[in-house]
């Protein structure tokens, strides 16, 4: 039996709420196979964002175990883990500079020092694939609309080719057409990797499985196929 692509066991995160300590994640288990697009559902405040951050090894106080392709997280190391299990946070944050600067920012980090970044042709194709045909590579990132900036941020993380993409409300600020283009980009990504999405919108036919976060644990809602 081969190991799942991503596996999390016993995730626990406690937050101080108005009514005392609150177990946002209470021993949550999660498994993800290559080719899957999993939507995580649940009301606001149920811990969906917390789950994504825990899976990305981005919550300092989260407890539990993480594996990727059969290797424990500790063997992989936090920074390399994040390049393979990549989180696109809910609030878009573009860096000062042009659109191209932003898309190439991951390759200016030491963790990718021996990898070559995409050329401008690849950047152009990636932008076109999510409906950003009218956005020039040398456009100042500060001048993008909210929806454009959100898609640039998604393209930025997608171009790094992680194994797993963790998308926190990827289409919250998009109109119908743009959301559909992002959804098909997600489906294309899942041909080689896997995606976990937190979404509030109606099902868009992209998810292969849906999970619900209730009382700090993950419950299957069922396959979508």
């Amino acid at each position, binding site marked *: 039996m081969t190991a799942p692509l991503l596996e999390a066991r016993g995730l626990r995160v*406690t*937050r*101080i709420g108005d009514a005392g300590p609150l177990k946002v994640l209470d021993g949550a288990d999660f498994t993800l196979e290559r080719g899957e697009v999993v939507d995580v559902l649940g009301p606001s405040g149920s811990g969906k964002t917390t789950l994504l951050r825990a899976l*990305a*090894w*981005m*919550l*300092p*106080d989260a407890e539990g175990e993480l594996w990727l392709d059969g290797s424990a997280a500790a063997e992989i190391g*936090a*920074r*390399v883990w*994040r*390049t393979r299990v*990549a*989180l*696109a*946070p809910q*609030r*878009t*944050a573009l*860096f*000062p500079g042009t659109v191209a600067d932003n898309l190439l*920012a*991951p390759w200016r*980090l*030491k*963790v*990718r020092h021996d990898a070559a970044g995409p050329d401008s042709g690849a950047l152009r194709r990636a932008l076109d694939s999510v409906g950003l045909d009218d956005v020039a590579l040398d456009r100042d990132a500060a001048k993008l609309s909210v929806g454009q900036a959100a898609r640039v*941020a998604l393209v*930025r*993380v997608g171009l*790094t080719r992680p194994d797993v993409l963790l998308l926190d409300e990827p289409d919250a600020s998009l109109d119908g057409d743009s959301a559909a283009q992002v959804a098909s980009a997600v489906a294309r990504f899942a041909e080689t990797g896997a995606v976990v999405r937190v979404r509030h919108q109606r099902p868009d036919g992209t998810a292969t499985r849906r999970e619900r976060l209730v009382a700090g644990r993950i419950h299957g809602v069922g396959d979508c196929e």
Partner: protein
Amino acid sequence: MSEAAGVVTIEWPQLLLAAGFMVVVGVISLRLALGLERDLALATARTYVQLFVLGLVLRWMFGIDSPWLVLAILVLMVAAAARTIVRRAPDAPKGMLGSSFVSMALTGFIVTFAVTGLVVQVEPWYRAQYVVPIAGMVLGNSMNGIALALERTFADLDARADELLALVALGASPWEAAAPSVRTALTAALIPTINSMAAAGVVFIPGMMTGQILAGADPMKASAYQIVVMLMVSAATALGSVLAVLLTYHRRFSASGVFIERGLRDDIATARAEE
């Protein structure tokens, strides 16, 4: 230097006359309802008391002439400065007192003794008359620079919290994520120093030179002293700020390199306390 030659001694009547002007300011404050009378009176009284006590302490120290006493006073000055720094950056992470103290002590001691030992060539090396005032200037200025640099670093990190989350998620190290904030903060901390160097002698006569001239020193000699002290003080401010920021910025990141944003701080502090 013939310090005594042209010194005009200030007596009690003159000292009281100076306070007279503060009374005028107090009356204005009353008439304009600024509500500053109490603060003005208190500040004036403190100026009298603190500077007279300082005079007494310095006179006593000059009389004792002990290297240990001089070193002890310097350590006390550094400790007081480190405390001030921590109080001025309330948002900074815990445990900053130590790194502030180390940065102040390292740069302050090295620069002070470089001035007194290599430039002024004081004999013996610990002569309080030179070491203590120069240390005061070096520490006072680098304290302001360090406090500003630390406050700016942590304020800018908080302002960039979303960007830091995105950067760390892309695989950035704490240094790669924090570097823009560190640069902003160090620039902000060094600009006042650079400005005062650029304006010295044109816009204002620096305090130490003013004092020496009033005390009857030759203006050329006073200039030479002021140049040395100004460059050394600027160097101490720059080095102290860089050191303090480099020693502290990573305290805002977890062991796995995640920026601990405002919303997470209480939870993590509580979790650590319970362990």
